């Protein structure tokens, strides 16, 4: 893929340095490369206003911009068609207002998830999410990549927890939508539009979330068995009166586990565990979940390379079929595999093998998952695999509308060009 960055005259950068302060503008190194594309400069503005001004400057100068904060998921999406400037939110890291009695928080986009949770825990509260790599991942990053985690089974995903957003657009506009009340239907819900938009519409600079109390008690149990039996048990749990705060199926060649997590009062958890035993019947006895069960969505990223990690979304009744599909596909292409899927139907799968095999395996998986009415999106893979396909899969009939939305927000394709669905 051509990476034809037009190098800007060096004289232009001092203008940007003037906007954000010269100590906040650095030359990029190869460590800043994003899927094979190395930017020229890294800008770290200290305020939302400076960020908006910097973005406008870059847009007017015809530069291509990639927003970044923690950088943990920078490679997600298609490789950028171009990237001249990384616009970092790293210095926008403050928790601006924790209104604990109202159970809301206003936080800047560059705040790391774990740092936010620590602040909230001082009042016994949490942002009810457990995304990937919380020590390093930031609020803007998890929003842009729509990364929620296993807790969504009970509390919903980011789109259900965000109640307000402030964004910077390529023309320098700073705009907000929503507010700091939980219930609000005034105007369009731009927070949802920007959640999962991979920084292609604007740069998120601030978000407001509704919060939940930290659990009083927590207990987690795991069942082992064949994927088919565990899928049945998962459906039985979904169809029961139980209210788990985590419910996931983990599988790898030759073994599978179902993890069930309960939060609440001691009496409530005990009663639910008892019911869980009844639902499972005598044949399957659970044990306490192994350490790491609830971070398996994270450990799936660890292992031998080359490898491909993809997010798939299917209906809960298809989980066993997905396990079987991974098994069959991996066998055909002599690669190893692992997967974990939350009961809402969102999961991660990992395939290990050489580059052509990964590519063929992915296309096989994609075809069969599409037949089930689901989707599979490549998050991480050798560059050669990503370059030969659209990581998002084939666009749907709303693609022309999607393109129009992009054109309205970012008419000149300044932000993350080429990275989103259909190469927009």
């Amino acid at each position, binding site marked *: 893929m051509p990476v034809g960055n037009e190098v800007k005259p060096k004289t232009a950068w001092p203008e940007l340095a003037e906007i954000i302060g010269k100590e906040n503008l650095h030359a990029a190194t190869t460590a800043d490369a994003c899927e094979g594309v190395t930017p020229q400069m890294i800008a770290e503005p200290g305020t939302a206003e400076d960020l908006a001004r910097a973005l406008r400057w870059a847009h007017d100068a015809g530069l291509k911009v990639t927003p970044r904060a923690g950088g943990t998921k920078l490679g997600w999406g298609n490789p950028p068609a171009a990237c001249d400037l990384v616009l970092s939110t790293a210095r926008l890291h403050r928790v601006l207002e924790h209104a604990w*009695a*109202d*159970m809301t928080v206003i936080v800047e986009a560059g705040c790391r998830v774990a740092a936010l949770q620590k602040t909230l825990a001082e009042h*016994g509260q949490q942002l009810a999410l457990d995304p990937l790599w919380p020590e390093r991942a930031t609020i803007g990053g998890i929003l842009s990549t*729509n990364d929620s985690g296993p807790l969504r089974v009970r509390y*919903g*995903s980011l*789109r*259900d927890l965000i109640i307000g957003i402030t*964004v910077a657009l390529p*023309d*320098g*506009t700073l*705009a907000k*939508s929503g*507010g*700091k*009340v*939980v*219930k*609000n*239907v*005034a*105007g*369009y*819900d*731009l927070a*949802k*539009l920007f*959640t*999962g938009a991979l920084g292609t*519409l604007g740069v998120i600079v601030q978000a407001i979330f509704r919060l939940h109390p930290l659990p009083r008690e927590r207990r987690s149990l795991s069942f082992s068995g064949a994927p088919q039996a565990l899928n049945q048990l998962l459906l039985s749990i*979904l*169809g029961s009166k139980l*209210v788990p705060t985590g419910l996931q199926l983990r599988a790898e060649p030759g073994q599978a586990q179902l993890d069930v997590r309960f939060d*609440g*009062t001691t*009496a*409530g958890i*005990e*009663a*639910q565990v008892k019911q869980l035993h009844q639902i499972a019947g005598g044949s399957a006895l659970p044990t306490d979940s192994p350490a790491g069960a609830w971070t398996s969505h994270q450990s799936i990223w660890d292992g031998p390379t080359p490898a491909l990690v993809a*997010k798939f*979304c299917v*209906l*809960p009744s298809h989980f066993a079929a997905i396990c079987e599909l991974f098994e069959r596909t991996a066998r055909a292409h002599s690669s190893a595999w692992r997967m974990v899927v939350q009961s*809402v*139907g969102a999961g991660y799968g990992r395939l290990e093998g050489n580059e052509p095999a990964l590519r063929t395996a992915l296309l096989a998986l994609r075809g069969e998952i599409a037949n089930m*009415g*689901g*989707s599979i999106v490549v998050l991480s893979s050798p560059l050669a695999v990503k370059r030969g396909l659209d990581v998002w899969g084939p666009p*749907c009939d*709303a*693609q022309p*509308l*999607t393109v*129009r*939305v992009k054109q*309205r927000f970012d008419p000149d394709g300044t932000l993350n060009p080429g990275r989103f*669905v259909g190469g927009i």
Partner: protein
Amino acid sequence: MDARILNEFRAIVGATGLITEPEQLSTYECDGLTMFRVMPLAVLLPTSAEQVQAVVRVCHREKIPFVARGSGTGLSGGALPVANGIVISLARMNRILEVDLPNQRVVVEPGVMNLNVTARVAPDGYFYAPDPSSQQVCSIGGNVAENSGGAHCLKYGFTTTHVLGMEVVLPDGSLVHLGDRTVDHPGYDLTGVFVGSEGTLGIATKVILRIMKKPEVIQVLLAAFNSTNEAGAAVSGIIAAGMLPAAIEMMDNLAIQAAEAAVHANYPDCGGLLLVELDGPAPEVETLMDEVADVCTKCGAWEIRVAQSDAERARVWTGRKAAFAAVGRISPAYIVQDGVIPRTALPHVMSEIVRLSSECGLRVANVFHAGDGNLHPLVLYDDAVPGQDKLAEKLAGDILRLCIKAGGSITGEHGVGEEKKMFMAEMYTEPDLGTMQLVRCAFDPENLSNPDKVFPRPRLCGEKPGVYEPHPLEVAGVAQRF
């Protein structure tokens, strides 16, 4: 309307699907907010997505504005017709198309009544969570347009939480699918943008809903306090104790009187009544209900009842759900408002409402979704007294300004519609509104779908968006933009 176009419409929806007689059209001249009335040129009642699409294509070709309408129960004038346009009623598209219990999905046409979804899946122990008080008559399509809430959205979320995908006819007549049966459909969350867009982005012709399993136990506690401030303190206490009830509702004395007069709910005659519903595993609900009762007692509750059976619970809820209509028993006319405030601002906002009410001599009854700070002040007036309607409108507006000032919103669940669009400019800045308008222009560049609603001054889609530059008179404080 041009006979040629009428004939074309008739060919699409059939003679029984086209209304043009003035006396029949008058049924459609307003929605639940009856103070705004506009007679449409025609009303069309399509029975399929294909018919909706064909009708919209004609509208697009002829530049005829259209307003989609469900059951017409909306309270912000969102389904108010436009004088030179048509109304597309989705009432005849009322089939439940698919029920998938293992995956907890139901696919419906937009004209299906909210409560009919629950009725269909209740025998298997499931329910559809959003429960606006009008749920017996309001439609899913209308709920999608308004992002309807209800008493239980404190715990279960709003319509947007429970809509996974849609089939939509866009204002240019194209048919697209947003979202899907599965979660996290790749691409922009256009479902999330469409829900709550008040009919300004197109017409949903099919909706994929998520249903939920009914909780093991549901209990409602009713507590009587001397004042709404005491009741408000109890709400804060419950939240601070780390509980997330399914619903927390509050009524003041005037609202209680109205409910008693209308449905004899047997509420105690008190200054502030709190209803707290907890649901979940039985032992958990019992433990937490004791804690709720403790908090209420500490905050001054002098009577506490716990309704445990379905029948008792239904009786307790009857008064609350009937409250809006019940106010008709104690006042000839009233305006329902829908402001939202951060919960902690409640005592201040309540005392301000009392002050404003006494200043203008009109009574205000208050019904709140107290858990999430959604106020429903009912401004009572006599429409037979000249000028009192204007006074009531002003008071209702002042209450909304109080909500904005407290960091809240002008609408929690009724929508902006026709009624509150002028307040949008007080809640949001020009760049905020301009950015929302970008979405509008992507979906409906010709401003045909429910035009002139929600936004105070629709920006033409040809206008170049850009950083808002205030007029020198604004900078000087001489003029203000509305």
